[in-house]
């Protein structure tokens, strides 16, 4: 029976279970309405006072191992593909063929350390860091505009260069927004329809985060941020009407952003006419098509892609999927997309299974992040959506993207590890 339930049904059930101690088990809607009028200060206080005591954890659940396995496979495959996709162009530039790969491997090592640390630390301790986290990441978003360290890539003013390192602060902002939204909606568990207390702050969070990304000219990240906030809100049980308002206004803002610049509009609409614009606006997409087509069912083999020789721009970062499809064929594409589907599924499962509201919202937001970012990237590469310059998590070359993705995976693991532990 339970297998036929939709995610929405299961979410409702999970919410009911979480609120069982203080809500009449009469049905989710009734219970939620009732909860609105009944503040639960003691829970809040209990959370704030969460003692720093040694956890006692049982054996990790299967989802924990599954997430770890999927993330490991994605990162390892990503490293191989980054090497394959970047070696020739780097060598042609007179660099070491391993230059990009070396950086990526270094970030993967940092990411691994971060992942393990974050996974070991109880995720609830992040609640105490929401305010500094939010302020820091918002401040970091201004850094690309600072003279000397800011850098613009393809019209997106979203990079900070410090010495040999290039960092995209928007990646860290995504992490911060997940935590912030989860924290906010955990606190406001019982005032979910309160306009001033809940809906306005959550709306502002989305607006502010996405607005910062748009200010950098980075539509892709803005979409992901919006999607994160939306998902967290949905998991939290925010009613349909405010969610719909949020979606409509976000779409409106995005549309306005695109239409406001003719160049942006041209590039945005180019995906609808790839073969017509193949030499100009849709050059990258068209070259991606050529690479993917060249792969066929079984692929041209690792190292066999021709597009990465320089025809396909950003073959090792934004368009790495095209190289994967080329070299590993349909087998590789199904593995990659399947990996993301599994990861998102495991994230959602974790969210629904967890015994703690913050953990649930965190896991839900993280799953949405991975899923939406993968869809926006893959949609762009496959010509189903406009190309936004968003990376493919775990795969694309780019230190901050890989590092933050792995931290996020660590956070998800931390939740998955503790699905059955009661809030301290």
């Amino acid at each position, binding site marked *: 029976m339970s297998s036929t339930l939709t995610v929405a049904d299961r979410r409702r059930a999970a919410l009911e279970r979480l609120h069982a101690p203080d809500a009449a088990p009469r049905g989710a809607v009734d219970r939620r309405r009732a909860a609105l009028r009944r503040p639960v200060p003691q829970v809040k206080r209990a959370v704030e006072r969460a003692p720093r005591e040694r956890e006692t954890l049982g054996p990790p659940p299967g989802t924990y191992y599954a997430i770890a396995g999927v993330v490991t496979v994605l990162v390892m495959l990503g490293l191989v593909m980054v090497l394959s996709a970047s070696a020739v162009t780097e060598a042609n530039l007179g660099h070491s063929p391993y230059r990009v790969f070396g950086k990526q491997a270094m970030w993967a090592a940092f990411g691994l350390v971060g992942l393990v640390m974050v996974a070991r630390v109880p995720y609830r301790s992040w609640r105490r860091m929401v305010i500094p986290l939010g302020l820091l990441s918002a401040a970091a978003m201004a850094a690309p505009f600072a003279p000397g360290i800011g850098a613009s890539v393809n019209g997106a003013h979203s990079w900070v260069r410090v010495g040999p390192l290039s960092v995209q602060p928007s990646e860290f902002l995504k992490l911060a927004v997940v935590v912030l939204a989860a924290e906010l909606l955990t606190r406001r568990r019982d005032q979910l329809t309160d306009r001033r207390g809940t809906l306005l702050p959550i709306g502002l969070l989305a607006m502010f985060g996405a607005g910062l990304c748009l200010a950098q000219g980075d539509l892709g990240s803005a979409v992901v941020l919006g999607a994160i906030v939306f998902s967290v809100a949905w998991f939290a049980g925010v009613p349909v009407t405010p969610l719909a308002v949020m979606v409509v206004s976000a779409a409106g803002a995005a549309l306005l952003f695109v239409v406001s610049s003719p160049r942006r509009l041209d590039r945005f609409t180019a995906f609808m006419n790839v073969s017509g614009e193949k030499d100009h606006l849709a050059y990258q997409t068209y070259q991606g098509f050529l690479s*993917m087509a060249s792969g066929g069912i079984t692929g041209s083999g690792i190292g066999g892609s021709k597009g990465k020789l320089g025809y396909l721009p950003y073959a090792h970062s934004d368009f790495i999927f095209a190289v994967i499809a080329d070299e590993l064929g349909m087998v590789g594409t199904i593995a990659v997309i399947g990996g993301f589907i599994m990861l998102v599924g495991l994230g959602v499962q974790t969210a629904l299974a967890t015994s703690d509201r913050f953990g649930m919202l965190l896991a839900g937001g993280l799953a949405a992040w991975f899923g939406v970012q993968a*869809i926006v990237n893959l949609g762009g590469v496959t010509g189903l959506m406009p190309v936004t310059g968003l990376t493919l998590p775990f795969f694309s070359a780019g230190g901050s993207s890989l590092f933050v993705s792995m931290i996020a995976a660590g956070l998800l693991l931390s939740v998955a590890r503790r699905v059955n532990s009661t809030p301290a």
Partner: protein
Amino acid sequence: MVGIIVRVGFLQTTEAGSLRSAGTDQWTRSIELPGQRGTVFDRHGNELAMSVPAVTVSINPKLIDNGPATVQMLDDLLGLPDDKVNELLADIERKDRGFVFVKRQADAAVGDQISAMRLAGVNVDRESRREMPGGETGRSVIGTTNIDGVGISGLELQYDGMLAGTGGEMRREVAPNGRSIPGSETVTQQPVSGNDLVLTLDRSIQYSTEQVLLEKVSEIGARGATAIVVDTDTGEVYSMASVRQNDESGAYEVTSGNYAAVDAYEPGSVAKVITISSALSDGLVTPETSYLVPWRKQYYDDLLTDSHQHPDEWMSVAQILTESSNIGTIMVQQEMGRARHRDYMAAFGLGEKTALDFPGESTGILKKAKDLWGSERVTVAYGQGVASTSLQLVAAINTIANDGVYVAPKLVKSTVGPDGEITDTPPSASHRVVSEQAALQTTEMMRNVVCNGTATRAKVEGISIAGKTGTAYKAADNGTYFDENGDRIYYASFVGFFPADDPQVTVLVSVDEPPASTTDRFGGTAAAPVFAELVPTLIHELGIAPNPGAPTCDAG
């Protein structure tokens, strides 16, 4: 996510075909691999013309970042002219062209150096360069190839189909900057080398012939000269040289055109050999037959004269040839009639291209007897009113040396296939023209020409030589025999063969426009000494030993 899988699935299967071929077109280039052009050897296997590896250096201005540095580097290695440097810099600045030649036919070693630097936008492509290891020796005959290695003149043109290899094809994968991906080159079709040509030319003789001509023409100030040395028995051409004063620089040089086969001129007195040997062959006259010869006589519209004034005297046929009497030769010609004489000239090979069929070869002019006009009808007896190339003329006179048998001249001795297989060309066609006796009698007369006649300067100590001079009036471009100053224009020639008792080689030397006002204008003074200078070289190179007891001038 599912939508994306479906989309990728379509891209990789049903839509893949056209995209894949578009991709292949984009990143593969096919390059024609030229088949190595065959080598041209002389008869002893010395290379006269050969292809050596070279490179074409070109740039794609759109891909060059640091224009000045790149051009500076190319200039250092290739030594470019200043205007080329400026042109390249301008092209890189504008970036409106995708391909600009920097240098063609550059040294392969320099090309390798440039390739090794792997500069973006700089391409080095292999080609070959035609080189003549012997310098310009024989270039009039061998001819030239264009910059793409296709024969455009001379033997290079005539035998282009044989020399040229069959091109192969190589496919390679290229990066967007046009640089090929190492290891991606696959030869889809192997090129096949062309055939080598082994010529009948002898490089030493060819060189000597050119040098003595250059010396002579620059010494006397003639316009140019040609000379041909053929093997008497086989018709094989040992050397065929053409030199001429360069109109612009005034320097004398070996010409690129083979004027010995291409230019026809009126042979003059040399043709008396044909008239007299024909009459002898027909038994109409003997060497002793005598005529009362005036120094001048009216024929048709013209009063024709001998070269010098003399009283009416009885002259034997032998004397007529030795003293080169025009009127006497006309009398001999009239014994056989114009038609018969014309048939003989044709049999001697006049009026028709030789078997060489050299590119641009002239047929000369041999009118039918009924088409001759006015005094032409008789002047053809002494070589005015008929035109021949040096090649035709040497083959004609060689008939006398070869006991009356015409043997077609020949330049290609054999061909060597790409597999090394040597194929000899068939022996030259030959046919009898005059009787052996007539040939021997004519030879004896010609020996006397050298000993006692007009060609004494062709004499060489220790070997008997038969020969005949010719001092022809050359038709100017204006259709008369006078230049714009009203001066005569001459064409001085000498044809000889030796040893007279057993001829081995026949040599024709022709000097074009020797100075009209000096005594150097005659065949005996301009051309015969060149012959004499060549003889020792020929004796040495061909190993010709004079027969002991052979008649010499002193004995005769």
